């Protein structure tokens, strides 16, 4: 076993930083090969098993993994449909994936669509000594959109049933 590996699990270890006023950076280590992390982000059957919440019902999970291809995820969470979509811009399996991301419920001024405010996600996956570091940089078009995006974490964070999450963790421990 590699010394970089941790005993137990890495739950709760994701770190969010805000390096610029339009940016959000999320980093997280995984005890899994880069190829597997890449697959889990780009294969619908696998995305459905982690991207939503325990309580989410999946309505759409489409991935057309090629440059210029699109992706779309729609879940129903507490009776509300929540949709995201975007387009793949750069694909370097298994180390780098660049795609746009549009929150379909984004409140926009008249004359514009949520697509005019697409954020760009740059995901990098670096494997070293059996441990893989995932970094997701989200760059918004405007600082206020970045702020709204972070503000949305408050709602989704609270919507989740933490009890269920804890049960799941206990089962797997």
């Amino acid at each position: 076993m590699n010394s970089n590996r941790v005993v137990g699990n890495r739950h709760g270890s994701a770190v969010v930083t805000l390096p610029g006023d339009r940016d959000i950076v999320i980093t997280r280590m995984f005890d899994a090969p880069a190829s597997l992390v890449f697959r889990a982000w780009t294969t619908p059957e696998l995305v459905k098993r982690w991207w939503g919440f325990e309580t989410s019902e999946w309505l759409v999970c489409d991935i057309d993994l090629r440059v210029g291809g699109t992706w779309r995820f729609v879940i129903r969470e507490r009776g509300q449909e929540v949709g995201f979509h975007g387009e793949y811009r750069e694909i370097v399996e298994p180390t780098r994936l660049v795609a746009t991301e549009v929150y379909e419920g984004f409140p926009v001024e008249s004359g514009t669509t949520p697509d005019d405010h697409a954020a760009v996600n740059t995901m990098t996956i670096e494997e070293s000594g059996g441990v893989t570091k995932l970094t997701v940089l989200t760059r918004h078009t405007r600082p206020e959109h970045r702020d709204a995006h972070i503000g949305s974490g408050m709602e989704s964070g609270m919507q989740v049933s933490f009890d269920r999450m804890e049960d799941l963790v206990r089962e797997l421990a």
Partner: protein
Amino acid sequence: MARSPTTADPFNAIAESARRELLDAIGEGEATVSELVDRVGLTQPQVSKHLGVLRAVDLVLVRVEGRHRWYRVNAPALKPIHDWVQSFERAWNIRLDRLDDLLGELQQEQEKGK
């Protein structure tokens, strides 16, 4: 949504990385401008300007003693920002913990399949 000027909103005040560095450099103690110049590698006018912005939104407090001005971080004023980012981080932790569990399951399946 209109964005307030940096001098009125602590969220905007810390959007600038130099100001976040200054808060880190002050840390839990007190520091003078010249100490901060040494710690962050900015010029004295730059440090003074950023401290001015941080003071305007109450993120740092100042105490005058003789000829020196001592700056310290106003921790309670930082809390709303900390909470704001934390709830977002918590939501992502839930999602990535699920990914972590899935990756573990997939690796177990792979090993069994061998």
